[in-house]
């Protein structure tokens, strides 16, 4: 493996080579890959810099790179997990990677969830469909230090039962007495043996009615779900300064230079992807 530094100056565009050590089918078209660094120097750099919320650019030489969050938490830095839907050239290529194959990773970039500010608070996690991965990174960062937090409520919904991701972890959370898990699928998406709720996430959230007192919310999902969930959170008495979300945009460099990912004056790769709902409200909606 050739040296990634040149006269002491690191080449910021050169990715690390990763071994695929695990692969899981989460849902139709959605896969999780577990990756390990080949180079211990790169791994150490990751251990020093990675905090929950940051993202990476995952790729295959010959195809390109694609941006996803790091779905594994900052409390588990021996590997990187990423979850993505197969949709374009790079994700299709990543989806066909098998254990033992090599992929590339560049990162971690971006800002982080301020987990220490959540100590002593109740936590409300709300996610929709393929947006559970970034939320899950925060969930595990908190569950791995469970005693630092109050009540933990997770509200998660997908279009259909098959579309729910991290199914085995959902079961695990379901069985823990220190988490309240509220699962839902969209009307018509339930299977005959579905035990949980049916309804869109915002309305299910309102039914569950978690208290806003001393509570921080982490919300990730497609734009339309976020819009309506924020309204529901408002009805429940949540302040937008205490609701955290992640934004994503098309990226190439990940380091603020290629000029692509900004929403108004905010560069998602440098000043995001983690924002409070209040910060998002200040961004021009016409650029989202």
């Amino acid at each position, binding site marked *: 493996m050739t040296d990634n530094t040149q006269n002491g100056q690191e080449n910021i565009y*050169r990715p690390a080579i990763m071994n695929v050590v695990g692969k899981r089918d989460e849902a139709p078209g959605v896969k999780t890959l577990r990756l390990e660094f080949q180079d211990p120097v790169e791994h150490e750099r990751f251990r020093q810099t990675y905090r929950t919320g940051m993202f990476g650019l995952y790729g295959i030489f010959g195809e390109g790179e694609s941006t996803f969050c790091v779905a594994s938490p900052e409390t588990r830095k021996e590997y990187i997990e990423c979850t993505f839907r197969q949709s374009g050239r790079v994700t299709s290529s990543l989806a066909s990677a098998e254990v033992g194959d090599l992929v590339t990773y560049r990162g971690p970039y971006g800002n982080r969830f301020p987990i220490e500010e959540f100590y002593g608070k109740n936590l409300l996690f709300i996610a929709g469909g393929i947006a559970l991965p970034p939320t899950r990174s925060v969930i595990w960062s908190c569950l791995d230090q469970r005693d630092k937090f109050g009540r933990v409520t997770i509200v998660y919904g997908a279009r259909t039962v098959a579309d729910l991701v991290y199914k085995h972890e959902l079961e695990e959370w379901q069985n823990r007495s220190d988490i309240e898990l509220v699962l839902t699928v969209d009307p018509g998406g339930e299977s005959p043996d579905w035990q949980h709720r049916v309804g869109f996430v915002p309305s299910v959230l309102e039914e569950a009615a978690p208290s806003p007192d001393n509570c921080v919310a982490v919300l990730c999902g497609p734009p339309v779900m976020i819009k309506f969930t924020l309204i529901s959170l408002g009805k429940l008495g949540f302040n937008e300064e205490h609701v955290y979300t992640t934004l994503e*945009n098309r990226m190439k460099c990940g*380091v603020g230079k290629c*000029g692509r990912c*900004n929403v108004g004056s905010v560069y998602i790769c*440098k000043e995001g992807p983690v924002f409070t709902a209040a910060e998002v409200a200040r961004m021009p909606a016409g650029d989202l």
Partner: protein
Amino acid sequence: MTKILLRDRLDDCITRWHAAGFEVIGPVSKNNISQFAAIEKADELDLGAILPGRTLKDLFFPQTEPMFRYRIGKQQIDTEEYLPPERQRIVFGARPCDASAMAIDDPLFGWDYKDSYWFRRRNETVIVTIACTAADEFCMCTSLKLAPDSTLGSDILLRPLEGNRGWLVEELSQRGSEALSRIEALLEKEAAKPLPPADVPVKFDLEACREWLQNPENFESHFWKEISMRCIGCGTCTFLCPTCHCFDFQDEGDTYTGIRRKNWDSCSFALFTMHTSGHNPRSTQSARWRQRIMHKFNYFPGKFSLNSCSGCGRCTRECPVDMGITETLQEITKLSK
């Protein structure tokens, strides 16, 4: 006592610079386009144009830049870096607007993460600018608070003397002094009075524009649709702009080996911000035009205290449909009053 460089000494200067290991580059007109190219003799230079058609950024941020080669094996992938070679260069005869533009892009390419492709070339290049004694109707450096004899980004500024006999020499930096030391013997001491710089009228009120752009209510103004109706969404203004820096990565090769390249891209292109899902945050040309103006005159100065424009005017000069930022900023100046 001021120093001057006589034009007929230029060939000797080039020879001495070559001997010192510098490649000498200047504006060359060939094949219906003027651009920066390496020269051997002074008569290859075209120093009479208002400014060359292509910009100085070609020398620091080329249209296509091979970054590294990858070789994919079963158990490992080898990468071989293609960082720009260590090569000292002197650019002779850039215009102050082009040199300022490079200085404007330095904080961007160095924003927390340093782009080694850019800085390698920047650190190895001496820029010798020639102050403008003439301007055309498209020049607008003064509207950007720069000037036909700006020193921003320049290592040596030459001010033309009368009768085309040469230039008054101004050392501006350590790098410039070192380059001049190689040709010290060719300079004359003379209390020469240079020609006055060109008169470039101010065309718009930059501060008023910034304020108008910063106002969130103007983001959705109908102005954006009206001003950009004829924009066809090509990349001419962005590619001929010395400060524009957007890029794309492309892997070119076969299954086992190839080169990852950094290529120019443009926020004017329809698919620039297109998500794979099909959602495009900037799906109309007016949204893309707004992004261009906002980025140059609002977001970039907000982050780096510099406008992402040096007033060279190429955007308007070359636009196939006669757009360019001047008209937009003039209209915004009117709107802000």
